[in-house]
């Protein structure tokens, strides 16, 4: 009895989470007018790939996509290097001052100067309207440093490091030759967390970028998915808008799929890693 109720509730929940996702996929390969007229409920109707064709011939989307790939690769690379550079020393018990440094980092989780001073700083550093404004202010995340430090402490036997030290191996070589090769699972988790954050980010681009050609994908998506819809809802002048709505409608669903494609492809492979990462963070956070 208990099991039956539990299963039914979970199945309902499953449907509730899955339905919007399935609908978007179906709508992306259906005839736009069928979607607009509410003929698509679950499965696609009048199969077509015009939506995808329009996405691939839209210069804004393609350039945004390319920009996002560059920002994500560069940003994630810097994130990983910085995270290791902080996490390894902090994982070592013989690193004097580790508590003070950790406190310095962790305090920023609870208190910050706020948006305006940070904005003025980035402006003074001359990073406005460059991609560095999207990358450098987010160079590392404290939560991830803690996760990685905990992994180093728990999963890399200290004896191995000590015996390497006896053999005259320097700290940097121990890190590169012994610690990092044993840390691939946590590196995978960090890569996932950081790259998804970069891929999905739009706030820094919104406030720091003025040049449209530098816009990341998410800002372009915002124009297509949200701003066009706002107009549709607020303006009553439907005649002139009808065509542009139809245009926007036909690529909306396809562009959502394309935008999430990299994550969707990586997700099944990385699932077991990120659960591990979350657990490490939770236990020792």
């Amino acid at each position, binding site marked *: 009895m208990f099991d039956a109720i539990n299963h039914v509730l979970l199945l309902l929940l499953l449907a509730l989470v899955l339905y919007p996702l399935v609908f978007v996929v179906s709508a992306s390969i259906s005839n736009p007018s069928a979607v607009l007229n509410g003929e698509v409920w679950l499965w696609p109707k009048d199969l077509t790939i015009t939506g995808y064709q329009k996405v691939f011939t839209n210069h804004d989307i393609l350039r945004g996509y390319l920009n996002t790939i560059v920002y994500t690769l560069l940003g994630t690379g810097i994130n990983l290097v910085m995270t290791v550079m902080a996490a390894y*020393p902090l994982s070592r018990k*013989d*690193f004097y001052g580790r508590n003070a440094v950790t406190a310095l980092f962790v305090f920023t989780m609870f208190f910050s100067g706020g948006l305006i*001073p940070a904005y003025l700083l980035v402006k003074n550093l001359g990073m406005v309207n460059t991609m560095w404004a999207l990358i450098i202010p987010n160079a590392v995340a404290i939560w991830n440093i803690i996760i990685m430090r905990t992994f180093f402490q728990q999963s890399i036997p200290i004896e191995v490091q000590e015996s390497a030290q006896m053999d005259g191996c320097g700290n940097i070589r121990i890190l590169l030759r012994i610690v990092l090769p044993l840390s691939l699972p946590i590196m995978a988790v960090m890569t996932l967390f950081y790259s998804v954050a970069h891929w999905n980010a739009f706030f820094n681009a919104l406030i720091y970028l003025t040049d449209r050609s530098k816009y990341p994908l998410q800002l372009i998506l915002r124009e297509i998915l949200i701003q066009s819809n*706002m107009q549709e809802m607020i303006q009553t002048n439907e005649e002139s808008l009808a065509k542009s709505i139809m245009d926007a409608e036909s690529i909306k669903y396809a562009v959502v799929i394309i935008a999430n494609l990299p994550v969707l492809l990586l997700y099944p492979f990385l699932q077991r890693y990120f659960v591990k990462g979350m657990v490490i963070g939770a236990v020792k956070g």
Partner: protein
Amino acid sequence: MKHATPSTARPRAVTAERSPLVKSLRKNWDLYLLIVPVIAYYIIFHYIPMYGVQIAFKDFIASQGITGSPWVGLKHFERFFDSYYFWRLIKNTLGIGLYELAVGFPIPILLALMINEVRSERFKKTVQTVTYAPHFLSVVVLVGMLMMFLSPQHGIVNLIIRLFGGDPVSFMTEPGWFKTLYVFSGVWQQMGWSSIIYLAALTGIDPQLHEAAKVDGASRLHRIWHINIPGITPTIVILLILNIGSILGVGFEKVFLMQNNLNMESSDVISTYVYRSGIVGAQYSFSAAVGLFNAIINFGMLVIVNFIARKVGQTSLW
């Protein structure tokens, strides 16, 4: 100990004088070199803005810089407290925060308890895979999807309403719907992801407790209530402290994207107000004051809740 050989030759007094920092610096100088860029990052991008927050008490003049601008005391704070927006912002920010806490906090716990009871590994795995997935969607896509589904003309929700003879509702522009949409779309996206921590805590519970309870004839619900929930209480408390500490820190991104002129009355929160008056309107000092007010309240709440948790239970952040 490994490096003891050279130091034994020296007089004892010198060794004793050397502080642990100097000793550690000599031995691990390369580790310090490694962490220096990260420390520099934190000082530049986190602590300098904290120092720069002094513009909240000044009249910022670009040519004079942050330190050169004249002091004006609490002028900007007073202006904010007296402004027409003050109570609206507090009401909305607190309202969304509390609503989110009341609905968004317990649901992942419930979900974790339910998943934990599933015996079929395959079904368990499926539920987890599906419920974690929306976490990876961007805020832009999430809000875009909300608009697709809730559009008054073509959205599927309004099609259903019309099918039953109702009048279509313009959900996204209706102030009354804003908070509910905000909170429940958040639940849809994050409940699976947030349940991971509780699931991990549940696997840490000693199975012998369950065995013993079974022998004593405890039902499944009894065991959940008396074993599982107490078992994850420390985790719940820690996350509750963190959540309450950020109650006024309602995220900018989703509110900003869901906001429009028509629902402003219930969607304007402190962070979007800071953005509008500060970044768009270039009133730096005034917005910095609003932001600082927010940060101080958040920090204060965190400290208070943590204090209470430490007094009442044994769990606390510090």
